[in-house]
């Protein structure tokens, strides 16, 4: 299985993935980037802060950048709300 490196930038720092992980294909690596971003961001959210500019860079085995996944592409942001029903 090919190895991909998933580097994350979350505003506080850029964290280089020196080890990488094996994925079935590039789509699986993209999926891991999305799930990883959501995981890191939800932890930040619990601490009361969130950086919307966070992203994950995906590099292939040769350390060539193959995609960048912005945090905002990993979630759907909704602003709609529901009013209290009238009595």
């Amino acid at each position, binding site marked *: 299985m090919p190895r991909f490196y998933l580097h*994350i930038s979350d505003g506080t720092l850029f*964290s280089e*993935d020196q*080890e990488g*992980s094996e994925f079935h294909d590039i789509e699986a690596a993209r999926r891991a980037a999305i799930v*990883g971003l959501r995981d890191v961001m939800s932890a930040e959210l619990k601490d009361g802060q969130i950086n919307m500019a966070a992203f994950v860079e995906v590099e292939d085995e040769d350390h060539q950048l193959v995609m960048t996944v912005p945090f905002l592409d990993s979630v759907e942001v909704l602003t709609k709300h529901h009013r209290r029903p009238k009595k």
Partner: protein
Amino acid sequence: METQETPGQTRIASAARSRTEGCIRFIAKLGAASTLSAEDEQAIADLCQDPRSVPAKSHLIREGDNPHNVLLMMEGWAARYSLVSDGGRQITAILLPGDFCDLHVTILGRMDHSIIALTAAKVAFIPHKVMQDLPINRPEVARALWRATLIDEAVLRQWIVNIGRRTASERIAHLFCELHARLKLVGLVEDGQFDLPLSQDVIADALGLTNVHVNRMLKNLRAEGIIALKEGELTILDLKRLQKLAGFDASYLHREMLVKQ
């Protein structure tokens, strides 16, 4: 840095030279908390005979298997895990040299989880019958094994606390503190440094995190100067800060029994 010799190391030094390192480690671990006679130690050494070599990433036993032997890690690391329906893996224990993989598993008859070797390993396969006879023939050894089982349960409790209530960085810090303490007991820590043959994926699966999150938190610990991690070797640069971050209290490992000796 602690320069004092640990009871484990003392045991290792005093054990017979002819026994394999793995066997000596196991005696050190069990003997650390008990008063074993020379005959008891020999009975333990007999348990460790003829370990089989197991390649990395191979299964020692799988969920659903009918276990006929009790497995004892002589060398190398293994992980106990269960899978969930989407294919996700939760590691529920990291097994180190000198650890049993389920002391009483043969009583249950069917494995409810799998155990995989994380590194090349040497594993002793002890027939159920031998384990059954041990309390009769060597009660002190049986007591030492029972104690080891209780401590394994205490470790599992701490893992639940870790995953359920600690933040990602606290979880990693706690895991490292625990591995440090457990490896020290079997003489595998030198100047705060030890082999850490765990990939990010394994750490993630042990802590209920994603590998991206693990990478991020490891970066934090490095940037803060608390640990150094290079080529599978972990150096704890500041144990006090790591323990503080983790809220680590080693009492669940019941090492106080060592002092009684």
